[in-house]
């Protein structure tokens, strides 16, 4: 068993990762609550925007910040476009069908990425990673600070936004009952488009941060979304605050397993195992009704 000293750097890594997972988890939960779509292409969109930034900086020799801006714009644009084009067509379908359709988008993006950039592993160092400071004996980069801080700000900011603004109220209304909210005069498509846009921006930002924290590889970034999905699932796709803490746990458990050699190879299982246990615990009381079987049908 490694000593406490050896664990310290991994606590920082874990918190940073957890922050990004919370960021993307919040993006997925808000979108799911508003539109009923669980966006499984979230990671693919983020991966592609990270690759676009990398390409602009390294091949087109653009300055860094405009490249990141374009990357986030791309993520927002693609997500919004998908939502506006396909959202209405699938609005009345089961949550499973909506989620499966986003897998289609994920495949399109995966194919495009592997076509343009091939499957080579790259690294992307954000300018915030070149500066570090020490906490005790552990060096902390600004990217890690931003990842954790952004997670906190976004999760609690979004929670406040949903609670106190008109748009937020409309989104919560949609989450409860689409038909009634529409009857009350809420412009459903407009509110949904806002949710798609916000979720797209968050996917772009988390894609960029993860490309620095984990590495720039299309497939692994695409599937890293499963880790934040695990956090969102533990929160039953409802509570943003629970998503935040679950994301921290997922990030910390995976990172802290790294120095323990006997389980190090299996550390990536952490999100899957945690989410499966959580789901089984949540669904321990099963109800069958003609409107749906509690979990699984409709919006959970």
């Amino acid at each position, binding site marked *: 068993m490694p000593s406490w000293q050896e664990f310290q750097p991994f606590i920082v890594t874990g918190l940073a990762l957890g922050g990004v997972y919370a960021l993307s988890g919040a993006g997925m939960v808000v979108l799911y609550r508003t539109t009923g779509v669980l966006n499984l292409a979230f990671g693919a969109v983020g991966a592609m925007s990270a690759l676009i930034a990398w390409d602009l900086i390294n091949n087109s020799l653009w300055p860094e910040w405009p490249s990141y801006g374009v990357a986030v714009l791309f993520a927002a644009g693609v997500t919004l476009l998908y939502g506006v084009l396909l959202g209405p067509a*699938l609005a009345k379908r089961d949550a499973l069908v909506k989620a499966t359709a986003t897998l289609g988008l994920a495949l399109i993006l995966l194919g495009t990425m592997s076509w343009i950039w091939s499957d080579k592993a790259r690294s992307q160092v954000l300018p915030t990673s070149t500066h570090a400071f020490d906490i005790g004996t552990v060096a902390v980069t600004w990217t890690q600070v931003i990842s954790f801080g952004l997670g906190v700000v976004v999760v609690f900011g979004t929670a406040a936004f949903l609670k106190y603004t008109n748009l937020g109220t409309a989104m919560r209304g949609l989450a409860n009952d689409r038909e009634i909210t529409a009857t009350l005069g809420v412009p459903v498509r407009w509110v949904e488009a806002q949710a798609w846009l916000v979720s797209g921006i968050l996917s772009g930002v988390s894609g960029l941060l993860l490309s620095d924290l984990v590495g720039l590889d299309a497939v692994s970034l695409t599937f890293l979304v499963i880790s934040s999905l695990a956090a969102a699932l533990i929160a039953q796709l409802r509570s943003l605050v629970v998503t935040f803490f679950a994301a921290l746990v997922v990030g910390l458990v995976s990172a802290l397993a790294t120095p323990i050699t006997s389980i190090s190879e299996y550390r990536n299982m952490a999100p899957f195992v945690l*989410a499966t246990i959580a789901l089984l615990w949540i669904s*321990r009381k099963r109800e069958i009704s003609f409107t749906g079987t509690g*979990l699984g049908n409709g919006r959970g």
Partner: protein
Amino acid sequence: MAEVEASKPAGTSQAAKPGLIDRGLGPIFRLERGERIRVTVIAVLFAFVFLVLPGMLSAYWTDVATAVVIYTIVALGLGLLMGRVGLVSLGQVAVLALGAWVGARLLFATGLPFPAVTIMTGLITMVLGSLIGLPALRVSGLYLALITLMLAGAITVVIAATDFPNGGGGFLGHTDATTGASQIRRPAIATGEHAYFRYTLIWAALMFALALWHVRGKPGRAWATIRQSEPAALAAGVNISLYKMWAFALASFMTGIAGALLAGSSGTLYNLTFPTQDSIILLAVVLMGGMYSLWGAVVAGLLIKLLPALLDSWGLPPDLLTILFGLGVIQVLTTAPTGLVDQFPKDMAKLGRLIWRAVGSPGRRAAGTAGPE
């Protein structure tokens, strides 16, 4: 008409003409005319693929054909789960990897004949796959799909750490040294490419028979009821837990068989054989092929294994296919839920009518009745 009848989910067409299959293995001439034609077409097709096709193919294309057959079996299992019972599993490729691992391990550990090992692999994978299906008893729909995705992720992590057996010692049977590694054996009667292709074809035929037997029998009717409405199934006295587990067990059994066949076909297994995105691609091709018909599995097998090889031979990047499958998923879900097997003949009929109208009666086309429906 016969095709349309076939592509309907079980239960609807069966309820209309009970007894047809319940008479057991009745002589073929007692079947209805449409059925008789279909049986004949299938028999001729199978004979062609079994006897003539291997002779026309080079070793490379025979390997491709073998892969098509193996993935057809996997698609058949997933198609049964999705189309018949309405359970979506995003982890079938992980189950296939599990099957291949078990198959390879057994082939190295025992001297048992290949068919015995294949069946044992199917049974072991069935038990393991049913464990994955266990949550299906409690959750359904989106949450079940996500649990299977999570468990598939976990299996992938474990297999990435243990690697595949290659003749090494210990429980894992993997050695990093090149000297101790050896090839996974094939059945004594089918060591060559052509023979092994025929061998997998026979297994595929058996799996189709097994699927058909299930779909047309009591399980098929129970599954159809569960898919339509769980409360209704419960009220009708269908044991929901039993039949859901049964479906998962059957799909895992088939996938395990496919895994053992894949182990024999490849000789050496790598993690790269089962990339993470393949689970999604498999779901895509099953949806595109058509999950309500058993033929959909054949189309799915061709899509996932023949098309990449074709593109490769034409010098096109195989990534185009991933994009195409992505578009296919969206297209199927928005406009054509029955998939290619059902949609293609309809579209062809439509096209035929269009051409007929354009060529045969230009006067009517001018009158503005070009759109048939």
